[in-house]
């Protein structure tokens, strides 16, 4: 029997890229209503906000930003050069006690050794407003309550606590962070959305003509105000003064951002605006391009000492190159040997990034480096071995989706190696000790990446993992209905990402860790003869753990035995709990989980009742669940399989996905009834 949950959808395509459109296209839908504008005065509060006890938009929010404002401007200083000033101004209503810590503020900023490399905070003002005996009382932040703490060698933090903040108060503060452009050359990302709702979130930036920033919007909310006006910008130096553009963006009534499971990273979903410096054109000087097209990005990378420069170093790899070259001429074998060498030699320091840390030679000598170090040296080594190998740039899941339509170096934060042998291609990431050749760790499975060839233009390639989270469990057992005991063998085979996870956890650990973990899974079983096959010998193969076991069934009574045949690999909970979903589901990898059981009954017993077989499929060949119980002679055969091959699902597909696992849980809970034959 087959259930089709829903007719096949017409638009099964992943639409995530639609959500973030280059900035200029975005503006077409905006409408600004002057009468709706909100321009409060610092230090002045309205009574209605003080009287509010709950935010109508979200009645249980513990705080709401009544006003959330940022403004970026540029100026010139004779001593420090170009300066970028970020003015921040927030006004927060504290609705619950748990929001009181918002009245404690820390503003870290960069503190280099020379005065030209130091950021500073100025014009810091703070107020707390309360309604005391129906009177508005304003308490100002005293200058002496502001502390400056040296947090580390390169960071100082300005800290202050707003006085008299209590449930019902409104706190307000404003300050400017001034950054020399040689410390920070682009504005921080502005998020319109955060953990509590915002009534008014506004961002302004006035960009002088000599600066070119690439701006990108992301998120699920639309702008309420978007203005873009030419303005004559005076930065205080005749060379730089001239026409520029003033931007203003406002989103009203912004809901709190609520994290959902199975997303890449919150910043992919939050409404925000991002900046990247594209170029500086100082009149009378050469235009300095940072990056603007993918061609530019690639050229910048190629010219950078920390990337392209590193790819041209190879001397230190000569010994190992010769060693591998002497062993074989077969390109695939060479690739495997080189990959294994770097995998074994190098310890990943846990950092991603697009920069080689202290250079690949040093990293090689130190046997430790970031992922860029490790994979660039792998690329170099493979090139030295005459393989077609190129760096492949991507954005990790925690770094967010890569937007192909927006050329920016900052889009990337990770490098792996891409190898072509004949018609076959492989992605290699040697920072992951137990990944087989061609398998990228989960963090790198994030849509598209860009291949940067030695010569010619780069291109985008989709990362489609060939492997899934795959696990096959098998039980062969004999049942003794008299006392309800079961005796037999249990085996688990871990493949794909399950194998990678297993090896990362157990391969280097103590012998008995596997046994302990197994015992934890099935504490009531008596387990013996645990054996592990292929711990790490062949990373392409599965890890196999097997054991003998003895278990007791609780629901045995003389003459009748109720028994759930999914003795292992049972899904007891639906991973999708919420009824609705706002954001797309991103599973990262596919799922393949199976269980096969063979249970032998003694003479004189028969299966009285068994669950019906079921097959459930997800639309667009997204996945399939099957469940079947059969009796062959005196053997009960059980077979169940969950396969989810698609990794991304739109919010409107969420009910199907939830229902799919609902059926799994339902089927996996069903029981057999075994009865003694009446003779």
């Amino acid at each position, binding site marked *: 029997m087959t259930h089709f949950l829903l007719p096949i959808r017409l638009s099964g395509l992943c639409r995530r890229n639609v959500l973030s459109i280059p900035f200029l296209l975005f503006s077409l839908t905006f409408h600004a209503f002057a009468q709706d504008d909100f321009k409060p005065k610092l230090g002045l509060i309205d009574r209605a906000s003080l009287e509010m006890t709950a935010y109508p938009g*979200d*009645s*249980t929010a*513990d705080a709401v930003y009544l006003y959330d404002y940022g403004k970026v401007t540029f100026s010139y200083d004779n001593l420090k050069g170009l300066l970028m000033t970020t003015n921040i101004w927030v006004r927060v209503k504290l609705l*619950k*006690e*748990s929001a*009181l*810590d918002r*009245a*404690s*503020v*820390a503003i870290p900023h960069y503190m280099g050794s020379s005065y030209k490399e130091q950021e500073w905070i100025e014009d810091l003002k703070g107020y707390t407003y309360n309604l005391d005996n129906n009177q508005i009382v304003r308490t100002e932040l005293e200058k002496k309550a502001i*502390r400056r*703490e*040296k947090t*580390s*060698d390169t960071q100082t933090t300005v*800290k*202050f*606590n707003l*006085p*008299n*903040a*209590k*449930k019902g108060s409104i706190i307000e503060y404003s300050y400017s962070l001034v950054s020399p452009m040689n410390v920070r050359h682009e504005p921080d990302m502005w998020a319109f959305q955060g953990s509590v709702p915002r009534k008014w979130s506004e961002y302004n930036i006035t960009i002088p003509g000599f600066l070119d920033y690439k701006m990108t919007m992301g998120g699920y909310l639309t702008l309420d105000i978007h203005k873009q006006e030419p303005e004559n910008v005076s930065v205080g130096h005749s060379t730089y003064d001239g026409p520029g553009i003033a931007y203003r963006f406002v989103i009203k009534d912004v809901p*709190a951002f*609520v994290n959902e499971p199975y997303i890449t990273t919150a910043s992919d979903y939050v409404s925000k605006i991002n900046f990247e410096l594209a170029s500086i054109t100082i009149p009378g000087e050469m235009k300095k391009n940072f990056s603007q097209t993918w061609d530019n990005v690639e050229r910048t990378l190629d010219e950078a000492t920390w990337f392209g420069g590193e790819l041209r170093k190879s001397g230190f790899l000569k010994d190992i190159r010769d060693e591998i070259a002497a062993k074989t001429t077969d390109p695939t074998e060479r690739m495997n040997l080189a990959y294994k060498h770097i995998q074994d030699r190098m*310890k990943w320091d846990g950092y991603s990034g697009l920069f080689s840390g*202290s250079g690949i030679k040093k990293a090689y000598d*130190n*046997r*430790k480096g970031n992922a860029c170090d490790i994979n660039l040296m792998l690329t170099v080594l493979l090139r030295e071995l005459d393989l077609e190998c190129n760096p492949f740039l991507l954005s990790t899941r925690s770094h967010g989706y890569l937007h192909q339509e927006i050329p920016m170096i900052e889009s990337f934060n990770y490098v792996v190696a891409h190898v072509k042998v004949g018609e076959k291609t492989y992605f290699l990431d040697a920072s992951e000790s137990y990944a087989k050749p061609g398998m990228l760790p989960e963090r790198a499975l994030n849509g598209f990446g860009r291949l940067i060839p030695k010569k010619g233009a780069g291109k985008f390639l989709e990362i489609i993992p060939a492997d899934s989270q795959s696990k096959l469990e098998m039980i062969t057992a004999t049942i003794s209905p008299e006392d309800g005991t079961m005796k037999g063998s249990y085996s688990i085979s871990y493949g794909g990402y399950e194998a990678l996870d297993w090896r990362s956890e157990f391969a*280097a650990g103590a012998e008995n860790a596997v046994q*302990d973990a197994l*015992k*934890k899974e099935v*504490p*009531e079983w008596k387990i013996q003869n645990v054996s592990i096959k292929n711990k790490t010998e062949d990373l392409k193969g599965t890890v196999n753990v097997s054991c003998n076991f003895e278990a007791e069934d*609780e*629901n045995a*009574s003389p003459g009748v035995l*109720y028994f759930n045949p999914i003795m292992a690999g049972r899904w*007891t*909970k*639906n991973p999708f709990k*919420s*009824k609705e979903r706002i954001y797309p589901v991103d599973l990262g990898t596919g799922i393949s989980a199976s269980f096969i059981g063979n249970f032998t009954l003694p003479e004189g017993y028969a299966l009285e*009742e068994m*669950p*019906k077989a079921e097959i459930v499929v997800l639309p667009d060949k997204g996945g399939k669940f099957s469940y079947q119980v059969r009796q062959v002679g005196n053997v009960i055969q059980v077979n169940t399989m969950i396969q989810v091959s698609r990794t991304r699902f739109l919010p409107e597909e969420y009910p199907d996905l939830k229902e799919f*696992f*609902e059926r799994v*849980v*339902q089927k996996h*809970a*069903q*029981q*057999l*009834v075994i009865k003694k034959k009446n003779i």
Partner: protein
Amino acid sequence: MQKLKISVRHVIAVCLLFPLGVSGQSDFNVDKINPVLIKDANAVVRVDELVWEIKSQSEAIQKTRTVVTILNESGEEKHGALYVRYDKFTKISDISGILYDAAGKQVKKLRNSDIEDYGYGSGGDDISDARVKHASFGKKSYAYPYTIEYVYETRKRNMMMYPWWTPVSDEKSAVELSTYKIKAPAGFKFRFKEYNNAPAMVKSTDADGSDLYQWTLKDYAVRKSDDFYPLPQEDRVPHMIVAPSEFEVQDYKGNFNTWADFGKFYHTLNAGRDVLPASILAEIKNVVKTAKSDREKAELIYKWMQSRSRYVSIQLGIGGWQTIDATTVANTGYGDCKALTNFTLAALRSVGIQGYTALIAAGKDEQIKPDFPSNQFNHAIACALVDKDTLWLECTSQTTKPDFMGSFTGGRYALLVTSDGGRLVRTQDYKSGQNVRNSHAIVKLGETGDGVVDVQVLYTGLQHESRASVINSGSKEEQKKWLLNHINLPSLDLQRFELTQGQDPSVTEKLTLNVRNCATKTGTRLFVKPSLLSRPFELPSVSERSSDFYLPVSDYNFTDLDTVSYEVPASYKLETTLPAFQIASAFGSYELKTTYENNKLICARKVVMNGGRYGSKDFAAWVDFLKKIRKADRAQVVFVENKL
């Protein structure tokens, strides 16, 4: 030749580093380690030398040298870096380090660039003048095993605290040699006490006539750890605590010979800081004007304080022991625990209610050693005396009810700071009978096993804490999410929920759930679980142990009373016998009763647990108890379709 050069350099290094003649081994070849120490270890502490050189009541020098052989990554995480905390009373005079390879050959010396300096407090609500130096060789990866040596010296001018000695600082690190030496002027008095079989002291006289006290621990192999239910560290690990008799800090003199002395010093340090401005005094008068009893007054003042103050961590000045004065707290509306306590007590005093600051070790299952007067506290609360009774007030929370201590400060010793000194008192215990979950569920079962479930649950005592904090901090969406993760069902649809707080204190939870697989349907049968929605119990993976075990009272002192009443469709009839269980043990009891009448299946489950310390020989009984409970909880009632 090469070899000789190295060893010469080595000797020079040692001489430079230990001019005071801290003894010890200097060959750190890994082969020299007794194989017994390597077994199951992530690291072997080769030498751990701590010298506390008391110069006077107001000054001491602390010298530390540690040499650790790191065997794997976990060992590196634990011992790879050195952290030295300092503040205006602690000056670091020297930090140095050497890295040796497996053969004991020096590979690298610590450079200034390997030492970083950080502020101690992180957020805006964490203000501290303490700082941390962090040293490590972490820029490079070294092949295991290798050995790291760190040496540093600090000069201390805050003599309220002496360093304690915990020779086995990590369960997975073996110790070859650990020593603690205290050098003091002849006849200088201080106090110490060893715990959990820490080695005894050997006293001698130094060349300059000073008293030398020394403790030495040798060849301590890694013990097989019992992962489940470990005893609290202070009851398990050998250690020694040391504290001053007479001491000076800044312009204050004191002694810690008795708890009374300890209290006296705290009192002196904070005397005269409880003056409130006139406007606040008038406000307080107004707050209590309708109150009829002292208790009522105290509760009103507490509520008033909660509504106008918030907690900010402030660790400034003398070890963070001197409170901000009450007037400042009145004006700013914030303070740390001692400042808010001081402010609250000042407010109580202004209406004639006496009360004391109580110093306490706060946190789940924290305890102090009552037999050794010394600073073992991390928190301060107020203890008001009303109508000849105590009223405990947690002043850093805006939502805690008066006199509720819970798992944070309940069931332990506290030091009451009185004007004539101090005395230890026990705070209130939370026994099983006080920490109750009382639930009633009505389940309407459909033909296919679907159910509509209406539940009402009352939580009190320790059991109400987590839900109270969800109410106090979460938005509706977050509360819902929390509940979805804490309702013990395979899948459900939460139709409606309501969480309300009572005065006792308590929380009432009302839920309406649609549950698809409330009972499992297979063919003509319906399988029903009597223990629907009950708390599950985990079984440890081992059933024997060699050491005592501890069931934390904050988790294990509880009573669960769960009643589920199923309305079974009339088309079904009962097939099985009705389960009934009664299990008694030293750890508590379990009872499950089921009745079936007029298509109504009523299941009542009662679990009482008693936390605490139990002997290793009782462990098998504990596992057996859990097994029996789990078995009882898995029981099911089977119904089969009526075939007419």
